[in-house]
């Protein structure tokens, strides 16, 4: 692959990562800003997944844990998105060896998430 196309891939990967951390950073700042006004929301049980899942959406949008958890989830999906973007770019360039390599990485990652969900 000529240098110019590698450069395109580098820009795409860099932008994907930057967008991911900017988004999750913003959600986390919003969460902590909200927590300053609602100190009672820092209670020990008000962050667990089971507790969050039991709350109605109207209560969640006013709760810091919701924004912090959303930020953490976005952060966790960013590297997966990065691998997906890389796979698509290699496919457009018809670089099949790296399409295969990226696909295996994506497959193993998905498998680990499914295994975690089933466990």
């Amino acid at each position, binding site marked *: 692959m000529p240098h110019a196309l590698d450069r395109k891939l580098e820009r795409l990967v860099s932008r994907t*990562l930057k967008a991911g951390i900017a988004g999750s950073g913003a959600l986390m700042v919003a969460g902590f800003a909200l927590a300053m006004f609602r100190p009672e929301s820092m209670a020990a049980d008000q962050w667990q997944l089971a507790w969050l899942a039991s709350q109605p959406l109207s209560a969640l949008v006013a709760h810091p844990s919701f924004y912090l958890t959303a930020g953490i989830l976005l952060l966790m999906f960013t590297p997966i998105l990065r691998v997906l973007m890389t796979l698509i770019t290699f496919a457009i360039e018809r670089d099949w060896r790296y399409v295969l390599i990226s696909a295996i990485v994506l497959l*193993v990652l998905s498998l680990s998430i499914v295994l975690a*969900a089933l466990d």
Partner: protein
Amino acid sequence: MTPLHFLLALLSGAVAGVLGGLFGIGGGIFLVPVLSIGFGLPMHQAIAASIVAVIATSSATASVYVDKGMSNIRLGMSLEVMTTIGAVLGGLAANELAGDALKKIFAVFLLCMGALMWWRSRTHGEGVIRVDPAASIHGSYYDEAEQRVVEYSVRKLGAGMLVSFFAGNMSGLLGVGGGIIKVPVMNMVCGVPIKASTATSNLMIGVTAVASAFIFFLHGNVHPFYTAAAVLGVLGGSRVGTMLGAKIKGTTLIALFIVVIFATALRMFF
């Protein structure tokens, strides 16, 4: 979480971010004890927060290094195949094995690797960097410290992949990111300049960490307050880390990396 705890978590995240940007490591070896001993978080919550922080370190530092052309995406992707498979298998076996014995074996391995890196830095300086047209992966980047374009070819990719499997396995078993193995392997085995090795490791550690992060998250061990505070610290610290990492001399970086390897080995022993 008290405001003081928030500030301290932010600060420890920042330190991990600086270490990550400089050395291509996730900083879990530093974050886990701080969160568990310093804040009294249960061990599995400390590891969970640390693993999410590793993802933040990876994305924040790699976004800079990839843009500068310092991370080698093809090399990273090739090695990631092995680290992710290794991490999943390691994660599955984690409950079966005695953690303490394994830690000591890992520490001995690190000591040997640190000694080898030290010996090589005295005989070979930054390593044997050369361009080989027959190699399947090549790389080049502008070295800000030396003010020149460095070109290299990746050698012995197969051996690199084998050790990456081992590195991934260790991260699954011990909950460490594995950057501390990936960097010396890329540098000493594959002939990748140290700065490209750390930058490529930065890109890789996020993917390795994601596999285990989901397990911790779905088990409800990711404490959003402590984790998010550490992540915000990482985002700040990694900016400083990447600035230093781009400007530092390769030989200085190798010398500092050897110190990090020995410190990590000692920490594993005690």
